[in-house]
């Protein structure tokens, strides 16, 4: 049974040459969109870097100040 999924997904394919009909009414131009997306990876880097740095530091703090401080086991 064909649910028309391919046709549905193709409406989201921005790499196709012909834009989907719905986008003709979009007030945001491709150039404006690209301009905004230029800076996205820097923000992602900062956010992911800060999140991962905090996670690693928290893990090290728990390992050193709780696990190792409680004494060895074997």
């Amino acid at each position, binding site marked *: 049974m064909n649910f028309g999924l391919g046709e549905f997904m193709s409406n989201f394919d921005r790499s196709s040459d012909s834009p989907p009909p719905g986008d003709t009414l979009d007030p945001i131009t491709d150039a404006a969109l690209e301009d905004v997306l230029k800076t996205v990876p820097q923000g992602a880097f900062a956010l992911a870097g800060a999140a991962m740095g905090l996670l690693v530091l928290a893990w090290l703090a728990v390992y050193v100040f709780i696990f190792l401080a409680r*004494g060895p*086991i074997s």
Partner: protein
Amino acid sequence: MAPITNEQELQKTEFRWAMIVTGAVTVLFAVIGISSFVMALHPPSHVESIDPATVSQSKEFAESNLGTSVDPDGAVTVRIIATQFAFVPRCIPVPQGKPVTIRVTSPDVIHGFLIAGTNANTMVVPGYVAEVRTVFGTAGDHLMPCHEFCGLGHSEMWALVRVVPQAQWQTDADGKARCDISR
């Protein structure tokens, strides 16, 4: 950082991020590996079998031999039976700052124990003797609950580990320590 403008730059960015994540994971594993090697840390991995039907008749886990005993060479061993729904004995004195070997077995179902505020934590499986070696650094009473659901009375199954400072540590003539003589 310069704006990223094309597909190749994006791929480079992703590669750099992958290297950073790989580096972070490597640091975590290195910390675990080096500290485990230097401090000889490893999970309790003792494997010793015992007949669960005759635990109380065995020489080691006979009622008179349970609890804390100090051998002539100074080694401290605690022997405990974990049974539905109590640890025997209920109060376990141990000396502060000395190596202690805890040996536990079960005659009925799977139990477990952890000692609050320490890393001592293992399962107690019928047919096997669980053994944990550790050093108690902080004097005082530590709760030791059963942490494997063992039946309707599971929540009532707990013991007390009393860590006694060296100056107050006492044993009787047989080398046995009890909570009522070491306070």
